[in-house]
């Protein structure tokens, strides 16, 4: 039954509800696995080829063709299972999910049903200062469908099967999330994780990471789940947030108005910000799952798992703990530095080349570097200042060659491509002045020129001292060592 567009608009935000409601959210994420060839055939998975040029005889389901499983897809599934601490099934089974759709060439999708490759696991999300564990129900291997292209020919749809057979790992959570923000935090965390372990390119525009979100509401304090509606195919975190917020509001309004929720699959329209039930008839989906007789049970041994484990990068959670223990970084810093593989790699490389205090490196990666990247809308992997270059700068801060303030100027120059820290410091004469005699001379000049301030200081105005330090730093063009300036000035005014 099509659900009519809601008449609730913006004013819904102001509505006062009779009951305090709780939203319950679970996610199903289709993660396209980073393989060269398809899950059951040797056709290429490269995105963007001309229609049906990567649709081999298996992809288009010619009579007589058969599937053979891609080992890399299995490795990706094992990697994911290990990353979320899940049970990896020693024996899993491929099943056929039967339904007719033009982008589904066989009339069934090869998926896993009763025995998925990855069982129960968990993913911890960070919400401000608190952590929350989201339980993962399962993850199973399956093949993607093709695409329908509309509008090329009047009244017709065109079918492109290049994507048909691309390997997917469908990752299903328990209904553990209680707000759009939590759902988005989970999705972002998962998005980073699958890229971190190298099983997905994470490209959401190209559909490599797509979320279906199950949303239901219930009066707060009750245990039974409400009837859920599934928002299909969300491919941006922004849309996910909007869609869940809209859907939640719509369900609450419907129930408050005395209506009921019908189980449905809905689509989010980014233009209107609304969700609507799909028009295709929800003829009671009866997928008639049964074990695919063309495929045999997938057996994964301890040795298989060990081989994949040996090939796994350090996981973000472990790396975060190590950063705290080994480098004495705060939980906040460690979490930020391990939010993405590229950030962690950048930080680790910087620190290795620097060899000094981790906190200084962390501050620069999360501060100066992040700010410039943000401004330029660049990913850290595209930073014009490489880790080794940043380390060169950090060395000069650490050995007092330059002050932190001058360091910012040097970093700007490095960002602009003017070279390494040392050459910039030299060519611009930014080296810090630490020669006491030179600093004394500067201070003498400042004291002579600012007799009034000296008087104020002596009369007990502490602020005047800071002003005199400022004058001295200015006179040195910022290069005088601030600690020495303080010390010498104090002595002279003594």
């Amino acid at each position, binding site marked *: 039954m099509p659900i009519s567009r809601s008449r609730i608009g913006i004013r819904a935000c102001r509505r006062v509800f009779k009951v305090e409601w709780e939203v319950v959210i679970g996610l199903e994420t289709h993660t396209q696995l980073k393989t060269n060839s398809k899950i059951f055939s040797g056709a290429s998975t490269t995105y963007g080829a001309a229609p049906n040029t990567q649709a081999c005889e298996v992809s288009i389901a010619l009579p007589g063709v058969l599937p053979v499983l891609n080992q890399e897809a299995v490795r990706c599934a094992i990697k994911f299972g290990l990353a979320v601490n899940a049970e990896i099934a020693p024996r899993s089974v491929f099943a056929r999910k039967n339904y007719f759709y*033009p982008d589904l060439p066989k009339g*069934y999708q090869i998926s896993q049903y009763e025995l998925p490759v990855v069982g129960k696991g968990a993913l911890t999300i960070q919400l401000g200062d608190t952590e929350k564990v989201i339980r993962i129900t399962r993850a199973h291997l399956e093949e993607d469908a093709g695409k329908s292209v509309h509008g090329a020919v009047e009244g017709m749809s065109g079918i492109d099967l290049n994507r048909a057979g691309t390997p997917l790992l469908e990752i299903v959570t328990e209904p553990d999330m209680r707000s759009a923000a939590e759902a988005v935090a989970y999705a972002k965390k998962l998005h980073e994780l699958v890229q971190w372990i190298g099983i997905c390119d994470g490209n959401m525009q190209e559909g490599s990471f797509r979320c279906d979100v199950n949303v239901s509401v219930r009066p707060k304090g009750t245990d039974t789940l409400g009837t859920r509606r599934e928002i299909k195919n969300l491919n941006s975190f922004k849309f996910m947030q909007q869609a869940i917020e809209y859907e939640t509001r719509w369900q609450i309004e419907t129930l408050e108005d005395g209506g009921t929720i019908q189980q449905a699959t809905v689509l989010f329209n980014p233009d209107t910000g609304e969700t609507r039930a799909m028009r295709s008839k929800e003829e009671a989906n009866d997928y008639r799952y*049964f074990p695919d*007789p063309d495929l045999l049970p997938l057996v994964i041994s301890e040795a298989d798992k060990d081989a994949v484990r040996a090939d796994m990068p350090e996981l973000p959670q472990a790396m975060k703990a190590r950063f705290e223990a080994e480098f004495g970084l705060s939980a906040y810093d460690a979490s930020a530095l391990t939010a993405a593989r590229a950030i962690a790699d950048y930080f680790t490389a910087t620190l290795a080349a620097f060899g000094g205090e981790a906190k200084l490196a962390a501050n620069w990666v999360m501060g100066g570097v992040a700010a410039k990247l943000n401004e330029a809308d660049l990913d850290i992997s595209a930073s014009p200042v490489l880790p080794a270059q940043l380390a060169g700068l950090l060395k000069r801060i650490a050995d007092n060659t330059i002050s932190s303030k001058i360091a910012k100027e040097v970093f700007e120059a490095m960002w602009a491509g003017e070279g390494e820290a040392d050459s910039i410091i030299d060519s611009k004469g930014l080296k810090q002045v630490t020669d006491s005699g030179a600093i004394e001379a500067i201070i003498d000049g400042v004291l002579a020129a600012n007799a009034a301030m000296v008087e104020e200081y002596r009369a007990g105005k502490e602020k005047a001292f800071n002003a005199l330090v400022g004058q001295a730093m200015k006179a040195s063009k910022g290069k005088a060592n601030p600690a020495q300036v303080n010390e010498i000035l104090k002595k002279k005014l003594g």
Partner: protein
Amino acid sequence: MINNSLKQLGAMLASKQISSVEMTTEFLDRIDQHNPDINAYIALDRERTLAQAAAADARIAAGTAEPLTGIPIAQKDIFVAKGWQTTCGSKMLESFIGPYDAGVIERFDAAGAVNLGKTNMDEFAMGSSNETSYFGGVKNPWDRSRVPGGSSGGSAAAVAARLCAAATGTDTGGSIRQPASLCGFSGLKPTYGLVSRYGMIAFASSLDQAGPMAKSCEDMALMMNVMTGFDARDSTSLQRDKEDYTRGLPAMTGDKPLAGLRVGLPREFFADGLNAQVSSVVQAAIDEYRKLGAEIVAISLPNTRLSIPVYYVLAPAEASSNLSRYDGVRYGYRAPEYTDLMDMYCKSRAQGFGAEVKRRILIGTYVLSAGYYDAYYLKAQQIRRLIADDFAAAFTQCDVIMGPTAPGTAFRSGEKADDPVAMYLEDLYTIAVNLAGLPGMSIPAGFAEVEGKALPVGLQVIGNYFDEARMLDIGHAYQQVTDWHTRMPEGV
């Protein structure tokens, strides 16, 4: 020449007594003469066939010939062959020209065999009489008012009427063995997984297996040498060392070549439902085996009586899914008129499939549908294991099992066409073998006199997994002392 064994034909080619082009032309001419009545072939392509024969002649001249090089073989129209019309006996695929070669076709091509044409069959191999073919029924060469059996009815009639040197078939529930029995020649369904299913249009994937249909066990051994072998494109293909299936044949001479062989006779195969004449022919054959040295032991396969119910759950279930790809989108039949996508699907499939195929799709859809899966599909898979276990137990008491292939002789066209249940009972003795995945063979064992006509009767030999070579030896030993396999129908 037409009654010669493959070995003899090979020798004629090797000695240049005849060229492959000449041999092939003779068979093509025979087809032109007899096929309009018998209807064994769906697709013929004289030019393509003779080009292959010419290439074989070149290979023979170059001295690189293999045993089947230059020999004209008929291919069941279930195998996709590049450039050949490949219909699977269905209107759905009437316009389908094979864009690639099946594993079996590749193997025959590589062996230098000549593809004589694509043989008629029950639509999508669903049938036991060849009457469900969109391209018309096939006549049994022994009595043209009767069916040749099915589903490999075209191959069967072609072998029996000597319209080919040998043929391929596929067997899901008896589709090689039952027509072999009804048409009086030798047919073998190998152990599941020995012959590649790649490019063999699927009916019931966990049961389908291709095998040879030929005049003798010796011919079948040569065919098996070509057909079997690992194919990486088929996940169910088994990785095994290559065997020479002819290796034991020369030893099958002398007084008691089968001394020590234990032959099990399942009491269930000689119970109700077996035609009396067939029973006595089979008993006579077993007596012959006694003479050859075999020891006869009584065995029981108590669950085989359930093989038909189990089969008619599992095979339609798999078929209903396998045949979903015929939707009129990428190839095959599309209804000329429709209102929308749903209507296009429903009309294309209603018009493109015949009645029996639709029935099986519906049964399969039903047994898999929500609420019925456990009672039907799961239950059938459980009983399937009981049936397989019966055989495992039996093979601790005997080396091979023997019995009738079919409960009767060839029946009249139309006799069972309207009664699916009666038709299904044709496969009473063959289906259990497919469910267990075992090798099964039918060899000519004599004739039954029916309404004034002598109709062939087959003896079924069931072996343990991978025991095909021994089964062929056992069949060959019998064929050394009998001549049933050399008999030819009149009028061809």
